[in-house]
């Protein structure tokens, strides 16, 4: 799997940018890191489709928890689980940067965050396109930690997908996904058009404490 384009704007967003002028030297630093990440980091993702049955995914032990995600999935007959990671090399890049140059580490961290988002966006878009062609609809991508969906469900999604064996994604005893730059999510598949939550903050569990300047780049289409 190749690394998709990583939008500079998205990296800036993760750095808390609010539209103030950015000197060319800093921009060049970020662009150089984007190029390095695209050259060196190999993303991996796994997606699997399940039939919804009594608020759970048939053939698995997984039942999404939390009113928000259940509301999203209510009209859906099927659900898709997604796990994606930038892999161990992204961790090593961060370790090196953190030892050598903390300013660089900060930028790299943001570029990698933008990169894993781009990977998930691409997977989601491909799925959406194939469903659209068949006259079906896909909900938003909902991750544990959004709204009231508990973070521990990340580990459950990994277990159902066999994510360690399939893409090298693990969950630590304290519930952290490692490699850090990883995402788990669930999406619903419907026969009728679905309500899609407003982008970003409103439905995000981090609202209130989040330091990011939200109003994230709209990626609807």
């Amino acid at each position: 799997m190749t690394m998709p384009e990583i939008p500079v704007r998205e990296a800036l967003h993760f750095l808390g940018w609010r539209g103030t002028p950015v000197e060319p030297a800093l921009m060049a630093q970020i662009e150089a890191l984007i190029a390095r990440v695209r050259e060196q980091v190999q993303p991996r993702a796994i997606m699997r489709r399940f039939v919804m049955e009594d608020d759970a995914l048939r053939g698995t032990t997984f039942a999404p928890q939390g009113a928000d995600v259940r509301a999203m999935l209510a009209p859906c007959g099927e659900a898709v689980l997604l796990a994606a990671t930038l892999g161990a090399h992204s961790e090593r890049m961060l370790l090196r940067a953190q030892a050598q140059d903390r300013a660089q580490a900060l930028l790299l961290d943001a570029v990698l965050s933008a990169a894993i988002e781009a990977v998930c966006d691409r997977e989601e878009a491909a799925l959406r396109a194939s469903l659209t062609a068949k006259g079906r609809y896909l909900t938003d991508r909902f991750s544990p930690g959004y709204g009231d969906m508990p973070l521990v469900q990340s580990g459950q999604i990994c277990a159902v997908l066999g994510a360690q064996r399939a893409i090298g994604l693990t969950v630590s005893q304290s519930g952290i996904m490692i490699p850090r730059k990883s995402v788990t999510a669930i999406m619903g598949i419907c026969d009728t058009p679905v309500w899609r939550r407003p982008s970003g903050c409103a439905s995000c569990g981090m609202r209130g404490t989040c330091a990011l300047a939200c109003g994230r780049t709209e990626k609807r289409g």
Partner: protein
Amino acid sequence: MNAQAITLLDGAMGTMLQRAGLKLGDRPETLSITAPDVVEGIQRQYVQVGAQMILTNTFCANAHKLAGTGFSVEDVVRASVAAARRACTGTQAKVALDVGPIGELLEPLGTLRFEEAYALFAQMIRAGVEAGVDAVFFETFSDLQELRAGVLAARACCDLPVFASMTFEASGRTFLGVRAQCAAMSLSALGVEAVGVNCSLGPEEVAPVLRAMREATDLPLILKPNAGLPDPATGAYAMTPEAFAQACAELTDVGAAYIGGCCGTSPAFIEALRAALADKQAVWPEKKLHGICSASTVCAFGGVRVIGERINPTGKKRFQQALREGDLSYIVAQAIEQEEAGAQILDVNVGLPGIDEPEMMRRVVTAISGAVSLPLQIDSSNPEAIEAGLRAAPGKCLINSVNASRASLQSVLPLARKYGAAIVVLTLGESGLPQTAEERVEMARQIVEEAERMGIAREDIAIDCLTLTVSAQQDQAMETLKAVRAVRHEMGLETVLGISNISFGLPQRQLVTQAFLTQAIAAGLTLPILNPNQREMMDAVDACRVLSGEDASCTAYIARHAPARRADKPAQSAAPSHLTIEEAICKGMKAEAGALAAGMLCTCAPLDLVEKHLIPALDLTGERYERQEIFLPQLMNAASAAGAAFDAVKRAMAKDGTQRAGKGPVVLATVEGDIHDIGKGIVCTVLENYGFRVIDLGRDVPAERVVQAVRENDAKIVGLSVLMTTTVPGMRRTIELLRAAGLDTPVIVGGAVLTAEYAREIGADHYAKDAKQAADIARAILGEA
């Protein structure tokens, strides 16, 4: 050529259990207790079609994975072994305890400690031995270090044969970047029965991985591939049993001697294998590579291989300080610098009076292995520290060193044997260093004999004939070279010399050092220990490799030294005359800020520069950040630029003997269980700029270590960071432990999920929303600003 009869293994267990109705996400191992007939039935099918060794249903039967199932490791292992035994009734088939990865990443990328992994494996293996298994079979590992923990635990718990198999991608690497040759070399060194590949891919895609392993081991190989590649849409495997068996049979001439199947295979596949392998035996040639390795890089012995010497506190104040404060970032940066300069092996020495050397060795080796891909040379005179290093290093190391004294031989050789490490032998005996080359060579012979008797391979022995200071004992330089020549050309062994020592006490040392290096390489030196950051040394090595023919067609030399490529260090950059130091800092211009500071220090006292220019510039940047005129990277770049100016100040102060007393100190840590340290790094930089002495304990720091650091350094402030809701309890525990220890040091906390209210609830004194605020609070605590 080696040859061995083939042992037929079983096929997939998970695939079969899913067909029998296992839900995804469930723990298949518990079925050995809840549905033993199903498990036994699957295994019996494998035995009936000819499997000669079957694996127990215990892949993830470790205490972490079984937590919450209501079953103990011992219960699950006992029931699984019993099921497998019943399945083998009436046959000669053997039962191997199946052991898979624990499911969490080990340090340094993850948070699971090596010794904890070791204990989890040991528990499983003891249970398996108790239940009467015939062998221990590790499979599907992608982390070499985790697998090393398992193999070492197995070797310690039993005398049964140990099999070690990893899973690779088509690139020939595992998810963690482990190369096939490194896996083969490291695991062979630990004394396993066979190494190999399972899962991953189909047999055709696995072939190159197996061939790569073959280069680095003389052991028989394990081959347990999937039934081809899965269909991305359905997850189904498409290969037929016959095609699978045919592709596997072709790998018997690479030495595949233990053959079975993984995901997607069934009894039909094993039956087809039996037919295809009926008149085959495994045959294989001797390995091509010998040397040492990390998890991702083999350093093959033969040519000149540079050992970097910089990770060593001797005579280095800054390094000593880093060791005392546990500042691993500084040490890791030294490792990266040497790797970038062209070192191929890193010497690691952390011996310093007053520090716990084994523990420090463990931590330093672990930290380095996360950031640098080079193999390591564990350098200590303390056998416990050597062992700690050998355990922590994911690969096959060199030990520096053993000498001819009884004590040394008896303590170090068994370690080399146990961990399969290569050794550096000093030609130094009870009565000191022999004066003539002949005596040193004779001593080398004796030690080599002793080492070989202990079971250490001759190819794993390197001899250090010892460099003496030429200004003190001039005749010894030639004796050393003579001894090197004899060891290399008569005994055929690798040779080591610490180069730098030759020129001690002389002016223009690098001239003498470089000449000695080239003469020593000409005499047969293969493993020079030197400072790779000294360009003259690496240039000499490059040139010698050309002259010896090692650098075929001069390719590497041309790549490094062609005029267009040779990046000579730029002259001290002169800052444009119109730029003020305040502007340079605010704009994050690092080189310019350093140059301007150096210039101003000619006329301005160091402390004046700090108080009148640097601090005001930092304050201004901080205010602009608060007003949201600039954002975080700009604040960080300004801090880095100020850092360059402070470096100039420190140099000036060192020259005139004054000191800028560090305020604090502040102890900083990302708490146990959490590995997010970007934010903490920013706080560290900003505090340092404001003149604080910061003791950065790193990430995933146990509460006990925070308490210890606060106590030992009489810290005035503690800063704790956390990113996830799931790791906040680690922060609460750290604060509780500080208070329980009677320390009332003010605690500042920060991190994405925290709020001021939550901070109060867990007992913190202050909450900082960002690095700027943390610095403001720290200054206020000390009664400034």
